[in-house]
C-alpha cells in the first residue's frame, strides 16, 4: 500500500472507490455483482452471524452467483439479529432480519436469484447524513 501524502491523494482514492461502488450498484446487467453485508458486531456474532456469513460465501459460490459477501458493523436491530443487507444491482438495499442458515438459503433462492421478496425485511427507518 502506498502512503497517502496529501489531501488530494486521499480525494483521488476516495473518488476511485466510489466510482467502483456506483458502477456496481447502478449496473442493470443481471451478471453484475450482488453485494451482501452481514452485520458482524458482537451482538450479531453472538446470534449466529458467523455461520450465516460462512454459509453465504460457500453457497453463493456453489450456486454460481456472482456476489461479494462482506462483514460489517452493527445495524442496530438487536431484536432481529443476525441481520444482513442485500443489494441487488440497480435496486435499493434490503435488510433482512432473523437470518439463520435456512433463511439465508431462502434469500439466495428467492430474492437474489428471483427478485422475490421474502419475510423478514426490516425497513430502514432513519435518515443518513446525506439525506
Amino acid at each position: 500500500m502506498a502512503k497517502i501524502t496529501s489531501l488530494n491523494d486521499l480525494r483521488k482514492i476516495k473518488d476511485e472507490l466510489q466510482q467502483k461502488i456506483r458502477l456496481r450498484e447502478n449496473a442493470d446487467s443481471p451478471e453484475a455483482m450482488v453485494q451482501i453485508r452481514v452485520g458482524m458486531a458482537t451482538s450479531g456474532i453472538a446470534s449466529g452471524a458467523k455461520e450465516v456469513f460462512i454459509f453465504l460465501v460457500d453457497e453463493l459460490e456453489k450456486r454460481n452467483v456472482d456476489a461479494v459477501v462482506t462483514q460489517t458493523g452493527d445495524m442496530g436491530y438487536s431484536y432481529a439479529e443476525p441481520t444482513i443487507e442485500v443489494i441487488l444491482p440497480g435496486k435499493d438495499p434490503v435488510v433482512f432480519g432473523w437470518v439463520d442458515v435456512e433463511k439465508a438459503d431462502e434469500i439466495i433462492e428467492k430474492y437474489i436469484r428471483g427478485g422475490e421478496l421474502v419475510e423478514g425485511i426490516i425497513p430502514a427507518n432513519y435518515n443518513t447524513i446525506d439525506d
Partner: protein
Amino acid sequence: MANYKYHLLVCGGTGCKASESDRIVNMLNNEIRENGLSSDAKVVTTGCFGFCEKGPIVKVLPDNTFYTRVTPEDSKEIVMEHLVKGRRVERLLYVDPETKKHITDSKHMGFYQKQIRIALRNCGFIDPENIDEAISRDAYIALGNVLAGMTPEETCNVVKESGLRGRGGGGFPTGLKWEITRKSQADQKYVVCNADEGDPGAFMDRSILEGDPHAVLEAMAICGWAIGATKGLIYIRAEYPLAIKRLKIAIDQAMEYGLLGKDIFGSGFDFEIELRYGAGAFVCGEETALIHSMEGSRGEPTFKPPFPSVEGYLGKPTNVNNVETFANIPVIFNKGAKWFASIGTERSKGTKVFALAGKINNVGLIEVPMGTTLREVIFEIGGGIKDGKAFKAVQTGGPSGGCLTQKHLDTPIEYDTLIEAGSMMGSGGMIVMDEDDCMVSVAKYYLDFTVEESCGKCSPCRIGNKRLHEMLETITKGEGTMETLDKLKTLSHVIKDTSLCGLGQTAPNPVLSTMDNFWEEYLEHVEGHKCRAGSCKSLMQYIIIPENCVGCTACARNCPVNCISGERKQLHVIDQTVCIKCGTCMEKCKFNAIEIV
C-alpha cells in the same frame, strides 16, 4: 420462477399487528388471488417500520408508495386501484404534518427523520476491517482539511460552534474542553478516548468501534491537532475483544496509509494511537480514574481540580472524550458546524445514540436528534411495550440516572431536561419497564450494581450505598418501616452531597427518582406488605381458593417442602410459614384453585 411486478410490504411490528395487520395480509392475498394477480404481486410481512403511531403500514414496491392507517377493509381498494389500475389510493397516503401534502415516496417522509444516523453513519455499511470502504465514505477527509487549512484555534472553534457536548453522560461542551487543553502549556499532551463503556445495557460505543473504528481514529487525530498532542490513547475494556481487534486493524491500516503516524498529509503533524486495556471497572469511565488506570495504578478517581485538561495522564494536559463524542467530530468538519448545530435543540445539539432494552419490542441501537421525546423513542421507534403490557417507567442514564414515568413521556431528550425530570442523559442506556416491574426492586438492582462497582475510596459511596442497598433489601422483604423510608431518603441525599466522584454522587439517583415517582409503591411495600408487580417473593402468598379446590392432592404431593395439608376430596391449605413460594402447586393444580395474592 415467479417474477413479481409488485411487492406489498405489510408491517408486522407489534403495534401494527395489534391493529389487525395480519388480517390485512390475508385480505390482500385474497384480493390478489381473486384478481388473478398471484404471479404479479406478493405480500410480505416485514419488521417494524418504526411508525406505529400511523400504523398499520403498507408499502408498495417498486414505487415506494407508503400507505398509513390501513384497515383490512382497505385491501380491496389497494389491489384494485394500485395494482390493477396503477393509481395510488390518495386518501391512505401519508400527509406531511408540516406541508400538509400527501407524500408518496417514503424516502422523503418526515417521520424518517425521527432517526438520523451521524455517529452510527457507517455502522452496518462498511467493512470495518477495510480502510478503503471507510475512505469511500469520507474517512480522513475532515482530518485532511483541518491539517491543510485550519489553525488549532480554528479547529477548536468549529467544535465549539457545533455545540457538541460530551456523549459519555456529563454533557460538558466538547469544544470548550479542547480549548482548555489547547491553552494548557506543556511539552507533551495526550488525547484519550474513553471506551470504558459500562452502563448496564449500553453498547453503542462498542458498536461504533466495531462498525466504524476509523471515525474515532480520525477524530482523535483532529483533536490532537487542535490541542497540540501527538499521542492518542484508547482506553478500552478487555471484555470488548472484537472492538479491540478491529481497532488494531484500523490503526495498522491507517498507519500504513500514512493517515496516522509521522507527517500526516505532508503537514508536519505527527499523531500516533495506542490501546490501553481496562479490566472493566465501571468507575474507570470516570476520567481521573481512567487516567490512573492507564498509568498502571488502581483505577480510582481523584478530586478535581486539577482537571485532566490541565493535569492528566502522566501529569500532562489530557483531553478525554468518549467514543460517541469522537464519532461525531469528522461529520462536524465535513458538513459544517452550522449543519450540526441545526440538528437538535437550543441547548443540546446533534443526535444521541441510545441502546433500547428491557420490555420494549425493538430492542437495539437507535440514533435520534436531541429533542426527540421519550414517547417517540419508546412507542414509535421502539415499537412499544412487549406483549401488549402497560408502560410503567423508562430508566435513562444507567446506574447514575433515574426512572421516568408516564408523565415524562413527552419530555424532549436533552441533557438539561432529563436532569430536570430527575434523571440524566448518561451514556445512552434506555431500559423500559412495564407493569410487571417492581420499582423498589429496580432501585435495588441499580444499587446492587453501584455497590459492586464502587472503587471503595470514599466512605459515603463505599459504605453508604451498601446501606442503601440493605435498606432496599429490607423493604422488598416486607420488613421495612416508615423509618426505613425516611432513612433511605436522608442517606441518599448525604451520599449525593459528599461522595468523591460522579459514581457516588449519582448512585442514589435511582432510589430518589423511584421514590419521587413511585412513592405509593414504596408505601405499599412497607405498610401493606404488598408488591403490586408481584416480583418481591417475600411479599407474595400462594393461597388455595376454596370454591375451586376439589381435594385432588396434586398440590400436596408435589410440594417440595410438604407445606400443603388436606384429606383427599377435602379442601387443602398452604402453611404460609413453611411455603418457599416456588409455585409448583400452582403449576400442578388442574382446577385453577391456587392464586397469588
